[in-house]
């Protein structure tokens, strides 16, 4: 038995090197100055100061959060009914539907996002459909709407699958018990089904919000060059500007904010599931 514990040792070393050290490096770069080499550096907080004193940067951060929140809300509103429908269908249909939601997730996210460019571009099929209904020359590509669409498209399956899992895990006898106690289907949904699916909803929110807030290729592909989110800012700092220290600082800020939010969400979840502890 003891022998098995040694099996973990190589991975512990590996993860220290490949998972912990990179984070430490980001922190180090974000706190130092001068350079793309580690040899000559001095500690400084100037990158953080630079970020937090510039209203433009803060606005970008704010807008990234706003669009992520919008994405999350839309995904929730669309995803819940779909997940509910899947969970209520018979077993065979259920597995087919889950599979058909999963298949697009297997196809590269970039490819799927790229596919929207053709659909949304001027003279594309969607514009033609809109024109048919009397909305002529609506600009679709390179708008916030396009970015939002791209995010919802990319992240909606996560929401559906998480909520669906939570709904499927729910014991059917709970619903019967509720009906037995006099609750009609709507009351059963509001008082039993929804409260019990909250963990799935929270997981779904996490899985949508997290990539949405840091996304950079969706805004770039569908929002155009003038559409900038915090993820684009980080990419820009590393790939184009070459200010790694400042880029690291932005990354740190984002990582820390996300971590705090996750902790808050988990806390809230514990409270709703409260009495378990």
């Amino acid at each position, binding site marked *: 038995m003891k022998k098995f514990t040694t099996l973990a040792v190589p991975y512990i070393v590996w993860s220290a090197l490949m998972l912990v050290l990179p984070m430490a490096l980001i922190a180090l770069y974000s706190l130092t100055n001068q350079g793309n080499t580690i040899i000559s550096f001095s500690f400084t907080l100037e990158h953080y100061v630079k970020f937090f004193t510039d209203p433009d940067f803060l606005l970008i951060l704010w807008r990234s959060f706003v669009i992520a929140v919008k994405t999350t809300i839309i995904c929730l509103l669309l995803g819940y009914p779909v997940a509910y429908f899947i969970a209520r269908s018979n077993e065979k249909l259920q597995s087919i539907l889950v599979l058909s939601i999963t298949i697009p997730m297997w196809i590269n996210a970039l490819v799927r996002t790229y596919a929207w460019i053709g659909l949304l571009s001027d003279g594309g099929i969607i514009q033609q459909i809109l024109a048919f209904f009397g909305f002529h020359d609506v600009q679709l590509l390179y708008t916030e709407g396009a970015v939002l669409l791209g995010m919802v498209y990319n992240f909606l399956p996560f929401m559906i699958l998480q909520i669906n899992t939570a709904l499927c895990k729910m014991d059917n006898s709970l619903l019967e018990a509720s009906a037995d106690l006099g609750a009609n289907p709507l009351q059963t949904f509001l008082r039993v089904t929804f409260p019990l699916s909250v963990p799935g909803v929270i997981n779904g929110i996490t899985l949508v919000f997290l990539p949405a807030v840091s996304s950079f290729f969706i805004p770039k592909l569908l929002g155009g060059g003038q559409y900038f989110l915090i993820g684009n800012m980080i990419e820009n700092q590393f790939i184009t500007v070459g200010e790694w220290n400042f880029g690291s600082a932005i990354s740190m800020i984002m990582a820390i904010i996300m971590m705090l939010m996750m902790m808050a969400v988990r806390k809230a979840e514990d409270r709703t599931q409260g*009495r378990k502890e």
Partner: protein
Amino acid sequence: MEKKKLIEFRNIVKTWEDGTVVLKGINLDIYENEFVTLLGPSGCGKTTLLRILGGFLDTTEGSVMFDGEEISHKPPYERELNTVFQRYALFPHLSVYENIAFGLKIKKVSKDVIDQKVMKMLKLIGLEGYENKNVSLMSGGQQQRVAIARALVNEPKVLLLDEPLAALDLKLRKEMQYELKRIQQEVGITFIFVTHDQEEALTMSDKIVVMKQGEIQQVGTPEEIYNEPANKYVANFIGESNILSATMVEDYKVRFDDITFDCVDFGYKPNEPVDVVIRPEDIDIVEVEKGKMTGEVLSVLFKGVHYEIMVETVPGTTVTVNMHVIGNRDVSSADGKEKISANDFYIDIEELENLDDKEIIARSDAQAWDPETDELMSIAKVEYDLKNELGQYPVKFSTANGTTVERTIFVVNQPFVKNEKANEAIMAFNFFKTVDELLESQALDTDIKTWANAQGWKLSNEDQSIDIFVDYDFDPENIKEGVYKVTFSTTGREFKIHTTDYSEVGQEVGLTFFPEDIHVMSKMVF
């Protein structure tokens, strides 16, 4: 006092989508203030019937009347009955209080009334002070009580309980049985209780409904069901019993095991085949000469309050064969690097066609091994020339390296012993074994059965095998070469007896019982 009819099942038929029929036309009346138990093994349809009543399943045919009103098409939330679910189905996101208050809140009962009622319920189930507990952290028994309170607080006319005690451990289950009975008597409503546990049913019910494969077998009080089972199935399901095939010679006379006994039953056709049940506690063990039957004590098990004694009154079928114990006849290869051994064996001529290399190796117990490491090697070649007639035929076994041993196959026409009365037959062969093989055997009885190829079967159905016991009088620890008798036998008629008196295994005893202890039942019709 004439009780009011509350629920009527009228010819309920339920068919699943795949075509299996779970309920085959159930007719059942349930009265006010009754504790009714639906009893039967899993799959008998009892839970289905309950779920139809609860409104969770539609019937395929038939109607359900509740208080004189047809309710088959009402959804569950409009029915005036409540259910305690098998795994309780407590809402994990709600506290004990909120769980119990659930139904009242749905009905928009005012807050103070809810408070009052919930508290009263908590008192009834003995969980005062638990109202803010998380239900998923409670013990099974406590959850059970909450589930009952949650249902009862709505003041239903009927409470349905779907195997509510199945998940509890034995001690808790007993406790809850009394608790449920007490609650039912206190609130004075009808309980319909589903279980597969006959003891539970006997303890708690006013009325038991025994079901089997979608049909009701018997409806009655616990006493009626126990003492006057309607058929073999009910008798078997309720309590332990000795059930035998018998013939009703005439009224008040029943005959089994070649003896005619007095009984209290009448109204059968002369010589009608019937089933007879005698409860183990109704049989007494007496001295041989005082017994209505005699037999040998086969086993005695101490069961706490009583002994459970098995007595064989009619012996089984036997067959005796010769065991040839021979010396060691291993053959070594020239270089001493391998050894090979095998035995002669007998085989029935009818089995010849099934004989192949593998079977011959198994029957002769042919083995080859390395004497230094004791590691087994495979037998590479088996040579034989068998004709489809009686006689002796040589067989040669060789290893890959050519170490060879030669043995004999005796093809015989082995007769088997038939016992028409007991509907069985038994057969075994003479066999050859070395002293070493006998000494090395770890489970000698089983090995001897294998070596002798002993088999027993039902005459009516050759594929149905019968257990065989082995008897011999040699001392396996100190066996020498020679020929020994080995007897194989089946068990005959056995009676199970519950008594407080001890008997010795092997003792000859007499059995006695009163005429009223013999319960005659019609043969079941399938």
